[in-house]
């Protein structure tokens, strides 16, 4: 029941997402066919371009066509790449997803550990400096931090490549090397958010009676902190991780441009310069769907971690 209700609640969200994505096309000022045709295009060529991409049709007809195709998994055709949008986007999605996932893993591991440390040593210098560090991480623009890492590790030290991508299937070590800096960039800025939430959630739990009981029974500090406290502090932490996943997804889109990784983000950004709007639309729609899916998973995880959530309306 709980899972079904959550699944159903995603439908109106996806509907609104698709409407917004479609309307994006309608916002473009001027005649896009003139841009596509270039300065030397004759009126006949322009007319053919409009015909080919349905630019001369009224908006409702275009909407009907777009939705009709969408339900068959067809995201339209690129203006310039001479291929379908779905192919272009899905081919690049794994790079974006693996980057965001790596970032999330790094941010979660270090964020949670830092948060626990700060909570256990509440008000000590560890607590204070880790919270100041978290705030600084939160304030640094991630793409700029990526550039700084490139300067330090790529240009000055020369330890890691300054950009470019090696597929994991070709050379695992090369892949790790090409993903290290981008993943660290993403993780660093989000680590602070997770650390802050872990700390406050752990502080709440560590204050409660059952923790005192557990300590009084003579359990080791490790068991108390990791088995008893962490499990009960996890719900808000998982929420923040879900939010972070979204931020990382959009962060990955930007970071790809910094490190020249061939993901959806770089595809979108490249298409902006080429005014290839079907690709922008498709990339936006797919990324939003991934985000909705991630949030759904987080919601369902919630119910699993805290059975009380399941019975709420």
């Amino acid at each position, binding site marked *: 029941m709980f899972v079904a209700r959550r699944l159903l609640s995603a439908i109106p969200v996806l509907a609104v997402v698709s409407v917004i994505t479609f309307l994006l096309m309608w916002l473009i000022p001027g005649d896009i066919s003139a841009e596509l045709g270039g300065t030397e295009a004759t009126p006949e060529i322009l007319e053919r371009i409009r015909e080919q991409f349905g630019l001369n049709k009224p908006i409702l007809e275009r909407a009907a066509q777009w939705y009709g195709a969408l339900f068959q998994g067809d995201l339209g055709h690129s203006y310039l790449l001479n291929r379908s949008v779905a192919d272009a986007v899905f081919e690049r999605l794994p790079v974006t997803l693996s980057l965001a996932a790596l970032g999330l893993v790094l941010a979660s591991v270090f964020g949670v550990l830092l948060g626990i440390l700060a909570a256990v040593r509440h008000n000590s210098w560890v607590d204070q400096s880790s919270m100041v560090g978290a705030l600084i991480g939160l304030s640094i623009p991630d793409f*700029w931090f990526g550039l700084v890492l490139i300067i330090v590790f790529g240009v000055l030290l020369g330890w890691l490549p300054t950009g470019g991508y090696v597929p994991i299937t070709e050379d695992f070590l090369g892949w790790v090397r090409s993903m290290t800096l981008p993943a660290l960039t993403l993780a660093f800025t989000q680590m602070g958010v997770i650390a802050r939430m872990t700390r406050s959630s752990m502080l709440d739990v560590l204050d409660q009676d059952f923790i005192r009981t557990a300590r009084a029974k003579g359990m080791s500090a490790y068991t108390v902190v990791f088995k008893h406290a962490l499990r009960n502090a996890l719900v808000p932490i998982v929420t923040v991780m879900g939010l972070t996943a*979204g931020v990382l*997804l959009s962060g990955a889109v930007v970071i790809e441009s910094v490190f020249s990784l061939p993901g959806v983000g770089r595809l979108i950004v490249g298409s902006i*310069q080429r005014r290839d709007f079907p690709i922008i*639309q498709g990339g936006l729609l797919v990324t939003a769907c991934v985000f909705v899916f991630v*949030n759904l998973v987080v919601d369902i995880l919630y119910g699993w971690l805290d059975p009380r959530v399941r019975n709420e309306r």
Partner: protein
Amino acid sequence: MSVEAIQDDTGGSLRAEMARARRRRTTQFVVRLLRHPSFAIGAAILLVFVVVAVFAPLIAPYDPNKNSYRFVLYPPSAEFLFGTDSFGRDILSRVIYGARVSLYIAVAVVVLTGIFGVILGTLASYVRWLDAFVMRGLDGLMAFPGVLLAIALAAALGPSATTAIVALSVTFTPRTARVVRAGVLVVQGMQYVEAAHAVGASHLRIIFRYILANALSPLIVQLTYVFAVSIIAEAILSFLGVGPPPPAPSLGNIIAEGRNTIQEAWWIAVFPGLVIAVVVLGLNLMGDGLRDIIDPRQRNER
């Protein structure tokens, strides 16, 4: 009749007394804010940033757009504190002028987000049948991760400062509206609101004088964060080429230009980003301080 009479008798002095009390509370609030270390540090950083941006023409040592091929790619020195770029332009001057653009965009986004957030949030909670409708719309807008929607919007509308403002306002309004809605929902159920209804106060009067006046503090905290995020987001849009276009500097497009010469001139990309980081840190500190004082229960939550 009696109510009128009492107001006539004592209204003048009572009103003056209440006004004095309100002023006293405001003063106390400001003093408490300024004594809060995070808020004070954050406010000081923001003040410096605003002063530098506003008085850019007086402070900048050089013309930010003047090419001079004698000084191409000079590293930081006493003459050029932040170095020069590949057109020989002084980076410090460009950063100072860029701060202007960033500040203008961020303030505009904060104002628009505040206005639309209040309108949508109040409508959603005050007009029952609109609630589900508005909230689903906002959920849909929030389903686009981070600044991705802003990037796409700016791409469709074409790069300019106005575009960036519109795109970022659309992106940040939903969460703000939710904050307002949550605040209004709480206040709406209070007895004094019911009392206002009972004595026949108009809806507009109730919304502005009774509800919003008491539901605004979370909004103020939220808007501090919107300010911070807007500065970063403007930089992202400019970096990706959909913000205010060069040659007029913005903090983001200086970084974008610096990226092309990153191998030989690190200073072009580093300094504007450092400025962003410090200002955003200041705003986050202010936001945390405000939240501590306005609502201590919410501490550590975002």
